[in-house]
């Protein structure tokens, strides 16, 4: 047996990178505050800065590939859609500064900036949240919440639902595989795949549901409802002061952004 591994549970939960090792709730506070700031400011400059920071973070925390894949899936359609829609919307509005001419289609500067503002506030927001979710294990978040008084029942429901989704995906794959083996077409266009997939839903849901009763009993056998003191094998590091300072800064940024947005709105009136 790997005793070193066993005794590593004596230490606090540690991943070895500063951002990932932060308390999930401190991290969430920062991510949410910056995300909200991006949404209320709605300036492309802010979004771009957030996105640059987020991307550097993703490189530092070694999640860059996953991060980039998800971010591009959001950013590319968003950028294309908003720019084109805004140009079409304001195509015949007089008084805008011409930007360039694309094969006879005149683009203007002001609608272009409007579209950039919209697209980048969403991209900035996504970048921050992706950094959060790709760098936070759900079990750590639940553990942090339990430390703050959330019951272990809530935590169990959350975590086991996530596992059931994984299990359901697994059984769907198994069923699809066996359908394939029996010569039923499972690859191809969307309709073919739908046709193969829908009949599997029944058995998948049934097997997921029939397991829950026995699971509940099995958890009961592990003294799940035992009262009086719960201890933890995995323990999160006590929150250091600097995390509180970072959280406070993030809250300040958010308050500043809200103030800025309010002032801007008042000026317009």
């Amino acid at each position, binding site marked *: *047996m*790997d*005793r070193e*591994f*066993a*005794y590593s*549970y*004596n230490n606090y939960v540690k991943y070895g990178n500063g951002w990932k090792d932060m308390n999930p709730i401190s991290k969430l506070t920062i991510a949410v505050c910056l995300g909200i700031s991006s949404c209320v400011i709605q300036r492309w400059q802010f979004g771009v800065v957030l996105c640059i920071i987020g991307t550097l973070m993703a490189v530092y925390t070694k999640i860059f590939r996953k991060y980039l894949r998800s971010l591009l899936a959001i950013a590319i359609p968003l950028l294309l859609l908003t720019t084109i829609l805004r140009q079409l919307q304001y195509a015949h509005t007089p008084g805008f500064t011409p930007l360039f001419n694309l094969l006879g289609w005149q683009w203007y500067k002001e609608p272009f900036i409007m579209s950039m503002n919209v697209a980048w506030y969403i991209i900035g927001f996504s970048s921050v949240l992706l950094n959060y979710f790709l760098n936070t294990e759900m*079990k750590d978040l639940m553990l942090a919440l339990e430390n703050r008084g959330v019951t*272990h029942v809530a*935590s*169990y429901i959350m*975590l*086991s639902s996530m*596992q*059931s989704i*994984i*299990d359901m995906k697994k059984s769907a794959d198994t069923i699809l595989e066996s359908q394939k083996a029996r010569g039923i077409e499972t690859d191809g266009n969307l309709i073919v795949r739908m046709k193969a997939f829908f009949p599997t839903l029944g058995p998948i849901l049934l097997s997921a549901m029939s*397991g829950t009763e*026995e*699971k*509940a*009993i*099995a*958890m*009961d*056998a*592990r*003294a*799940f*409802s*035992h*009262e*009086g*003191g*719960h*201890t*933890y*094998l*995995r*323990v999160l590091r006590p929150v250091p002061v600097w995390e509180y300072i970072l959280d406070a800064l993030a809250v300040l940024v958010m308050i500043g952004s809200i103030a800025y947005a309010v002032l801007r709105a008042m000026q317009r009136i």
Partner: protein
Amino acid sequence: MAFIELKNVSYKYPYTKEFALQNLSCSFEKGKFYGIIGENGGGKTTLCNLIRGLIPHFYLGKLTGECLIEGKDIRDWDTAELSSKIGYVFQNPFTQISGIKSTVFEEVAIGLENLGVPKDEMIERVINVCEQLDIGHLIKNNPNELSGGQRQRVAFASIIAMDTETLVIDEPTSQLDPEGTENVFKIINTLKHSNKTIILVEHKIDLIAEFCDEILVMEDGTVAFAGPTHEVLTKRELLQHEASIPEVAKFGLAMEDAGKHLSSIPVTMDEAYRLVKERKGR
């Protein structure tokens, strides 16, 4: 007074017509090792569910008769309290993994977390149990990706780690190969010497014969035979029942039929060897 005492117990699962237990009476004493055998559907698992209080607290249905644990009616027990007193290893290994832990080590520790065992002690206990159950090499694995046999051992370990005074174990070896089975029985043997009360449902009759102090044979929801191992396993009537008796006991009975009596009917290999040798020497 017996530790567990059942008198004229009948039970019907919800929405079923047939009784799963019928007019069953039996008792279990502290510190003894009981084996329960009998045909499939005979009510062995249902009896375990009752002793552990899942009936009537979890499975509703209709329960009549008296079922006392330490003199207190099962209906009056709090299930949380029972869970720290009576450990229960279930028959189906697939539903015994919590689904909320990402390593086997954490999985085995769940019961201890719930019981509030201090962390240092928790780690030591989990290490010991994993070594005992020969799952030391699995501690880093994801429990949701184990095979049936591995799950069965992990589930078994999780319950043993809780160190309850009483253990109810329902077919712990159904998914195991001969080697794994022998291993589980080694553990059961060490548990036996730790003065625990053990109630074991198992089909492998030779193993039952070797380890158990007393045996209950279940049939159609009731106890057909009960008593000390040797007494029960050498009963001729058992030959007519579907419950199996050890091959060596059948051999002893056949010798008797042929007029070549051994001095007693053996139930284990060692015993048979000794008796045959003794007969030769006569």
